[in-house]
């Protein structure tokens, strides 16, 4: 039997009604080991205006580089309280902010480890299907060898790497159009 996947439709302007109950801006609770980091940024439209009706979803491994998922069969532990999922709506100015632990390196497609990264999915009014991207970390030598980053034209890679703002605080924006348009992936 072979079907095709159902068509995507926009979340529309009233996304909060259905999605707010699962908002999670603290991805790693107290019992989760690792380097604490807060990420903040904005979702910006083609005019550079903040998108107030977007939601950003995050998926990540824990600090040991292990996903809380049955298909991650690495012999590593994952904290019971760690799901690795974040859902953060943007505010009236298009801003979002969440805290977590920096993920460890996870296996990549070439048999090498990937650089630490967060997987990101973005939904909003005016977007008929989700956008997928990643957040990488600054000052990370592994970025140079990362199999996914290496698929990205060198001039655009910076859009995927968060910028240090203060100790433990990083910034990363979703730029939908224009000069610094964020790289979005087709997996």
């Amino acid at each position, binding site marked *: 039997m*072979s*079907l*095709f*996947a*159902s*068509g*995507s*439709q*926009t*979340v529309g302007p*009233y*996304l909060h*009604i*259905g*999605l707010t*109950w699962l908002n999670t801006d603290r991805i790693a609770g107290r019992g989760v080991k690792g380097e604490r980091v807060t990420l903040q940024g904005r979702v910006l*439209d*083609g005019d550079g*205006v903040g998108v107030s009706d977007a939601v950003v*979803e995050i*998926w990540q*491994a824990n600090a040991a580089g292990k*996903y809380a*998922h*049955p*298909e*991650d*069969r*690495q012999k590593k532990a994952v904290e019971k309280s760690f799901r*690795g*999922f974040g859902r953060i709506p943007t505010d009236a100015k298009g801003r979002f902010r969440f805290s977590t632990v920096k993920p460890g390196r*996870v296996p990549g*497609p*070439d048999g*090498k480890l*990937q650089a630490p*990264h967060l*997987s990101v*999915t973005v*939904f*909003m*009014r*005016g*977007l*008929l*299907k989700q*956008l997928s991207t*990643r957040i990488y970390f600054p000052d990370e030598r592994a970025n140079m060898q990362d199999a*996914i980053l290496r*698929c990205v*034209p060198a001039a655009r890679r910076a859009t995927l790497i968060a910028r240090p703002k203060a100790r433990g605080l990083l910034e990363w924006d979703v730029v*939908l*159009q*224009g000069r610094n*348009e964020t*790289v*979005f*992936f*087709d*997996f």
Partner: protein
Amino acid sequence: MSKVRGYRRFHPGTQPEYDFPFYASTAKRHPTQPLVIVPQTLSEVTGPVFGYGDVRPNDNDLTRQHKGAPLGERIIVSGRVLDENGRPMPHTLVEIWQANAAGRYPHQNDQHNAPIDPNFSGAGRAVTDAEGRYRFISIRPGEYPWRNHYNAWRPAHIHFSLFGQAFLTRLVTQMYFPGDPLLTYDPMYMSIPDEKARVRLVSQFDWEHTVPEFALAYRFDIVLRGREATPTEDLSVGE
């Protein structure tokens, strides 16, 4: 070994384009650069795991979330979540939201001059059973105007959000009602190029689940991306 068993790419024509001029809001919100095609890794074929502990027993009954019953025609919406290989997707989270019977959302951005129903919030969720089945009780949502073009009205619809077993199977879509004359005028519905794929977003009247003296039923099956037909050599990852 770090081979992962990948998911299929979308069938051509079954998904909307980001840039769709008939839906005006896509103009400033679609990427102008082509997506970068990349291999699927462990990060994409895993995803958040939810279970029955994440929902309360009455979360799937939108008519019993307040003191009184909401106004409107009670309906039952049920179906199965499958993958492209026809396999049921058990224990996956399904979130829904919708307008009330008058076509109004209890949301600050909804300025439509139609009454808010104090007995209807319009949100529900469920976790599918072992066979991928879900069931909601709700009221039939009303059509409502929007400002996309002159005299624009959204057909009656229910928003659906699903996860599946991987971050890349994430799906947000909308369910429509059979025979709705507004469908062919609706940019969202019409954004899906392939007619067969479009029609699949229209629920079907469901005699089997219609409950006498209680509510009409509609059936809405949802298909998430499925695994590649030929499995690669090793499912395990990492050491």
